[in-house]
């Protein structure tokens, strides 16, 4: 499906496939538009199945001149059937897409893989980003793997784990005194001034965003080329949420999948819920907020794709919900206890939202539900600190029995 233009989502003006992200006529966001596929579904399926065990197996649906050799292979993460989680929630079929299995332990490896590959094709020499942490990790790692210098801009108060795991790759880490929206505003200004810099989520954003579609392709392929009935996914800027739907739509249109789009349920933290708030109020414009939540990777107060996320939730019979910090902690725990997958706070938001939907009776018990777990619990360790006690014993059998076994039995 060869990419043939960048197209404004608001006014449909088209542009060449350059490093450009905003429509000069109306300031609307640009998205990659593709020429019609030259192949039938059977041939596409054969090419996918013969492809590498990473996201380049979906190269027919990505905006690159030619798929690169993967320097840091990304994708093909497990889709795990979570029967114990389903049972706890009174549901029948729940699947967890475990994105912690990516090279830097979040779905951001996907978007960075595509943006970096396109940046190289366009001749950029420096890779940069504005990040709430996971993107910083991914940009630093993929830049290192490809031998390119990287500058990552983060809010100065980010979790220590995410800062350390970025600097480890040799990237220049810039802590900005402000929140993510301040970082983002700075990077938007910088990208207009530094021509040789590829800010993956600013001037390379149309390509970057396409990487999230590969989540949909993988889920469908792992389900045996079938669609789920419902997808529960976190919403920060709204880009992942809407692009997963676009991925399913493209495969339906290509004849690879039969049926309708799943219901899309967005998950936000109550401390940063501009999209859930606008959805609940029946509006389509998201009023920006100042984030205050433990889910820092979702702490985008001014979500650029918010209006499109709301449209998608309404059109598919889904919704957008918000959960409190306590519910997020409980969500992290619930997922870990029932699936063995330890997620960061964003996954706690998603799991807590799934629990809320189940409790409210919004999910038909017969539905096949997929939950997107986008990042790893090792990056937000503070939220589990103090939630359990370590048994403290002397190295003696008697002490073990007296302290541990009798304590657990009590």
């Amino acid at each position, binding site marked *: 499906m060869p990419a043939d233009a960048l197209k404004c989502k608001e006014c449909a003006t088209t542009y060449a496939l350059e490093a450009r*992200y905003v429509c*000069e006529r109306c*300031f609307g966001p640009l998205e990659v538009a593709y020429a019609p596929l030259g192949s039938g579904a059977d041939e596409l399926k054969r090419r996918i199945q013969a492809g590498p065990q990473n996201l380049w197996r979906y190269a027919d649906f990505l905006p690159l001149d030619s798929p690169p050799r993967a320097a840091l292979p990304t994708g093909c993460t497990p889709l795990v059937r979570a029967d114990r989680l389903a049972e706890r929630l009174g549901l029948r079929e729940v699947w967890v897409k475990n994105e912690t299995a990516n090279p830097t332990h979040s779905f951001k490896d996907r978007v960075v893989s595509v943006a970096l590959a396109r940046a190289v094709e366009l001749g950029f020499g420096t890779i940069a980003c504005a990040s709430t*942490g996971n*993107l910083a990790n991914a940009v630093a790692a993929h830049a290192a793997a490809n031998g390119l210098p990287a500058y990552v801009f983060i809010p100065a108060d980010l979790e220590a784990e995410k800062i350390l795991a970025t600097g480890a790759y040799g990237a220049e880490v810039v802590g900005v005194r402000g929140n993510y929206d301040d970082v983002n505003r700075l990077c938007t200004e910088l990208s207009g001034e530094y021509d040789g810099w590829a800010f993956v*989520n600013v001037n390379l*954003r149309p390509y970057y965003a396409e990487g999230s579609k590969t989540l949909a392709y993988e889920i469908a392929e792992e389900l045996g080329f079938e669609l789920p009935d419902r997808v529960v996914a976190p919403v920060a800027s709204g880009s992942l949420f809407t692009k997963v739907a676009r991925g399913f739509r493209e495969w339906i249109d290509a004849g690879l999948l039969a049926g309708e789009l799943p219901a899309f349920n967005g998950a936000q933290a109550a401390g940063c819920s501009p999209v859930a708030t606008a959805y609940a109020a029946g509006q389509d414009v998201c009023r920006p907020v100042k984030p205050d939540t433990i889910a820092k990777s979702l702490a985008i107060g*001014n979500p650029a794709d918010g209006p499109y996320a709301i449209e998608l939730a309404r059109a598919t019979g889904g919704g957008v919900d918000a959960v409190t910090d306590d519910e997020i902690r409980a969500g992290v725990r619930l997922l870990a206890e029932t699936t063995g997958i330890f997620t960061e706070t964003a996954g706690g938001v998603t799991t807590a939202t799934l629990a809320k939907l189940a409790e409210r009776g919004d999910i038909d018990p017969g539905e096949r539900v997929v939950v997107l777990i986008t990042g790893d619990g090792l990056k937000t360790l503070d939220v589990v600190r103090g939630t359990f006690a370590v048994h403290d014993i002397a190295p003696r059998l008697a002490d073990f029995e007296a302290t541990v076994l009798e304590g657990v039995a009590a």
Partner: protein
Amino acid sequence: MPVTVKIPAQLRPAAGGASEATVEGATVGEALEALYSSHGELRARIAGDDGELRRFVNVFLAGEDIRFLEGLATPVPDDAELTILPAVAGG
């Protein structure tokens, strides 16, 4: 009262290549009107038919999104700096 408006790269072709402009205005809305009167092409890019900002246009007064303030009615102090930027996000 003089206000400096910083024009993003994407809008400079519609502003004769200028990266900033100095205009007069007591509110954000007045300052933008003054900007449109010297660079007419900018009006349709920044404002919708209802005169409000288009939904993907952000305007910052001294770094603060004017939607956190009083929107277009936000008063601007002397020598203030307004920055126009496209909405873009994703961390």
